[in-house]
C-alpha cells in the first residue's frame, strides 16, 4: 500500500452567504493509497460532502490542491474534470439516484458504455449479488437492492476511486451492513480505493483509515491496524 492515489493538500472552500463567509473546508490535507478503505467521519455540516465533491471533480476549492496519481485535478478544466469523473471515479449516493426508466442492468450499462476500460457487467452484478434481478426497474426494487445497483454502476466503470456519500444513510441496519459488505468485497476484488463518508461512527471500524472531521477541519486521522469485517459491525 505504498502508491498514493489521491493527495489532498491544504484544501479550503469558502461560500459567500450575503456578507458572511462560510468556511466549509479549512486547510484539509491527507493522502489516500491504492486499495485503501477510508471512512470520513463527521456530523452533518462538517464539510465531508464538500470534500467528497472536490475529490470527485464535481466542485472546485477556494484554495489548495488535489492530486490524482500525481496529476493536479484542481487545475483541470470542466472538460478534463468530466473525463476524470468518467474514467477514474465511481460515485455512490445516499439516495441511489438510479435512472427510473432503465432496468438494473441498463443502469449499469449506461455507465460502462462511456468509459474506456469497463469491467464485465455480469461479473459486477454477480459481485453485488444482483444477477437475478437485473431486468427489474428501480421502482420494483427495495432500497438495498437499488443501492447495490448503484454500487455496480460505479464499479463497472473500473474506477480507481469509489466515492460513497452516506451509502447506508437511507437503509435499515441489516441492509446497511450488506451494502458495506459489498463495498468491502469490491474494494478487495477490484483493488479500488474506497472512500465512504458517513456520520455513523460504527462504520469506521471496518476502515483502514478513519478521517474525523468537524466544522470543516480534520481533527484526527486514525490508522486502523485491525479493521473488522462489516458483518461484525453493530450500531
Amino acid at each position, binding site marked *: 500500500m505504498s502508491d498514493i492515489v489521491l493527495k489532498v493538500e491544504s484544501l479550503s472552500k469558502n461560500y459567500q452567504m450575503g456578507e458572511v463567509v462560510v468556511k466549509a473546508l479549512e486547510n484539509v490535507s491527507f493522502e489516500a493509497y491504492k486499495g485503501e478503505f477510508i471512512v470520513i467521519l463527521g456530523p452533518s455540516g462538517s464539510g465531508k460532502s464538500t470534500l467528497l465533491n472536490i475529490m470527485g471533480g464535481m466542485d472546485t476549492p477556494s484554495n489548495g490542491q488535489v492530486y490524482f496519481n500525481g496529476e493536479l485535478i484542481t487545475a483541470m478544466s470542466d472538460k478534463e474534470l468530466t473525463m476524470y*469523473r468518467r474514467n477514474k471515479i465511481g460515485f455512490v449516493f445516499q439516495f441511489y439516484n438510479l435512472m427510473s*426508466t432503465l432496468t438494473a442492468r441498463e443502469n449499469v450499462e449506461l455507465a460502462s458504455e462511456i468509459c474506456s476500460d469497463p469491467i464485465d457487467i455480469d461479473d459486477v452484478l454477480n459481485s453485488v449479488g444482483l444477477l437475478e434481478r437485473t431486468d427489474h426497474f428501480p421502482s420494483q426494487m427495495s432500497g438495498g437492492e437499488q443501492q447495490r445497483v448503484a454500487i455496480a454502476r460505479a464499479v463497472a466503470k473500473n474506477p480507481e476511486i469509489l466515492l460513497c456519500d452516506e451509502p447506508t444513510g437511507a437503509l435499515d441496519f441489516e441492509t446497511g451492513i450488506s451494502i458495506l459488505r459489498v463495498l468491502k468485497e469490491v474494494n478487495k476484488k477490484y483493488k479500488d480505493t474506497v472512500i465512504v463518508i458517513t456520520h455513523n461512527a460504527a462504520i469506521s471500524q471496518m476502515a483502514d483509515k478513519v478521517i474525523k472531521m468537524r466544522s470543516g477541519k480534520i481533527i484526527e486521522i486514525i490508522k486502523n491496524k485491525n479493521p473488522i469485517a462489516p458483518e461484525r459491525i453493530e450500531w
Partner: protein
Amino acid sequence: MKKLDKRLLRMIKITKGQYIAVVLIIVTGIFIFTAVKNSALNLRDTVNDYYDSANFGDIFVSAVSLPEKIEKELIGVQNISGSEARLVLDVPLILDKENENVNVRVVSIDKSENKINKLFINEGKRNISEKNIIVIKQFADARKIKLHDEIKLKINGRQHTFNVTGIASSPEYVYIMENEQTLMPDPENFGVVYVEENYLRQISGTNGNFNEIVVKLNSENDIDKTSDFLKDNLDKYGIKRVVKKDEQLSFGMVDQEVEGLEKMSQSVPIIFLTFAGIMLANMLSRIVKKDRTSIGVLKALGFTNYEIIVHYLKYASTIGIIGGIIGSLIGTALSSMMTSVYLQYFNIPMLSIKFYFSRILAAILLSLLLCMAAGLFGIRGILKINPAESMQAEAPKQGKRIFLESIKFIWNKLSFSWKMVLRNIFREKKKFLLIAAAVSITCSMLIMTFWMNDIIDVMFNKHYTEFMKMQYNVGFTSFLDENTKNEFSEILNVNDIEGRVELPFEIVNGSKSKIVTVIGLEKNTVFYDVNVADEGIILSSNLADYLNVRIGDKILLKNFMPDKDDGYVIVKEIINQSLGINGYMNIDYMNKLFLDKDIINGVYINSLDDVSKILDNVDNISSIQSQSDMKGMFEQFTGMIAISIGSMIIFSGLLGFVIVYSMTLMSINERALEFSALRVMGFTTKEIFYMLIKENSIMSFIGIVLGIPLGKILIDYMGKMFSTDIYTMKEPLTAPEVIWAIIFTIAFLILAQLITYVKIYKLDFMQSLKSRIS
C-alpha cells in the same frame, strides 16, 4: 442501442400525451405549409410552363381596324420578336332555347398553327378549314358541346353554321371571363371559339382588316417602352386598348390567385409552428427541471454537457422528424387535391401534380430545425445544473404572497381552493400566459373563420342588392343615342330605366396606372349607391389605394376611343366597394369630356318581365346580365369556401385543444406530489379536477377576451392580404361571428379538460408520495 437512447424512448413513452400533442401541432403547421406552398409552387410552375410552351403574347393591342401589313412591319422594331394580327369579335350564339342570351368571342386563327398564343388541342384536330370551329374547353364542358356538333353564330347580322372539329385550351383564357365587370368565370354564358382567319375576314364585314394584334418581345424588361411605342405608332389605326401581359385579364387573375396562395403559405403555418416551438421549449425546460437530479447523476458519472444536451435534443428532434414527415406527406397528398380544385377554375391542359422529393425533405428539415432550436432554448438550463447540488433536494419554491392578497376585502372573501388557484397562476406565470395566448389565438382564428364565412355572403349581397340595384344590365354593341332607352319602355314593363356608359380607361396618377371600367351614371341614379356630382370622378377605395390618390387629386384618364381626347379629372369621392374596381362619373360630364353629347352604350333596367327573353331578338344588344344570374354563380362558388372554412375551424380548435390539454397534463405530472398530498388529506379527484379547471378557466377567459381584439387585427390583416382587384374585404366584424367563435373555443377547451380528467383519476397518489427517484 445506447442506454441513453433507451432512456429517451421510455421518456417519450411516459410523456406520450404531451409528445403526441406537440407532434400534432407540428404536423398541422407543416402540413398546411406544404399543402399550400406545394399548390402554389405547382400552380406557378405549370402556369409558367404553359405560358412558355404556348408562347403567350406580351402585349395585346386592340384597334378599330388594322391592315395586314402591320404584322410584318412591327417585327424587329422596339424589341419586338413576333407579332400576329387577328380578328376578334363578340357575337351572339344562336340557341334553340329562346330565353338564353349567350355571347361568344370569335377569334381568328391560322390554318395549322399560330406562332403566338398557341392552342392546346384537348380533342379533335388543330388544322382548320372554312366552316370549322374550335371551341374552348371550359365552354364546351359547360354547354356539353362535343366534336362534330354544329354551332350557329350570328356574325355581321347573318347566321353561320360551323362544325366543331376541335376542343382546345388557350393560355389567354386560363381563367375565362368576358371582361373585368363579370367578376367571376361563367363558362356557360361566355365562351371563346376559333375560326379560320381568311374565312372569318370574309364573313365579318371588316374589309379583310384585323382588329387586334398580339406582340411577342425579345425580353420583357422594356415592355413599358414597347407599349408606349405601340400606342403612339398605331394611333392612326384607332387604338382602343394596349394591354400588357400582366394586365391581361386571365393572366392577372391566375397570378393573383397563386400569389394569394403563396401569401397564405407564409402566414397561417407560422402561427402553428411558432406555437409548436414555444410549447416544445416549455415542455423540455420542464422535463429538464424535473430531471435535475438525473442530469446531475449523468454529469457525476462522467457524461459531458454535450452528450447530455444531445440526449435531450434527440427528444426534440424526433418530434421534428416525425412531425415533418407526417406533415409533409399529408401536405403533399393534400396539395394534389388542392391543385385539382384549382383545376376546376383554371383551364390549364398540362397541369400536372409533381412529386417533389426535395420539397418534402425541405419541410422535414424546416420542422427539424424549428424543433432543435426550440429544444435548445428549452434545455439550456442543463448547463447550469451542478452535479453536486443536484443531489440535494431542491429548495422549496418560495411561497411569496401575491399582490391580490394585499387587497384584503377581496382576498378574505375567497375560499381556500380559490386562494390556491390564484397563487398557482401567479407563481407559474409563463405556463398560464402560454395557455392564455393559445386560447386567444384559437379564439381569434375562429373569429376570422366565421367572419370570412359571413363576409363572402355579405360582400355579394351588399354588392348586388345594396350597391348595385339594377335587375338587368343591358349592353349595346355600339354607342347609341340616349333616347334609345325609351324604346325599351315600349317593349318592357319597366319600373326604372337609365342610360349608362361603361367604358375602359387607363387611369394614370404619376407613375401608377391601371386600366379600369369607368361607369357614367345619371345624376341621382337609382341603380347605384353612389351620388355622382356634376363634375369629377368617384373611385373605389382599392383603386384609389392602388393609384395612391386622395380626394382632390387630379388624375389623367386616357381614352381608348379612337380620335377622342384624354383628360384630367378631379377625384371627388372615394367609396368602399366590396367587389370590383371602378370609377364613376356623371354621364353628361363623361360624355362632354371623352365622348359625344347624349350617347349611351347600355341601359340599367328594373323590371318584373323576363328581360333576357324579350330582348333576345332585339338588334344592337351585346349582353344582358341579370342579378339572379350573378347570385346563382356565387352559390356554386361557395361550395369550395365551405370546405376551407371547415378545415380552418378544425385547425384553430386543434391548436387550443392541444395546448390546453398538454399544459394541463404537464401540470398534473409536475404537481403529482401536491395532488397526492391533497388526496391523502381527503380531497376527491373531482375537487382536484375543479381546481385545475378553475386555473385554466381564468386563463381561458383572459385568452378569449384578448382573442377578440386579436381577431380584429387578424381580420384587418387578412383584408389587406387578400384584397385583390376583385374583392375588397372591408366588412366589419359582427357580434354573432364573435359569439360563435367563443362558443367553439369553449367547446374545444371543455373537450381538452375532459380528457385530462382521466389522468387525474388514474393518478396513483401513494406512489407519487413515495417516489424520490427520477
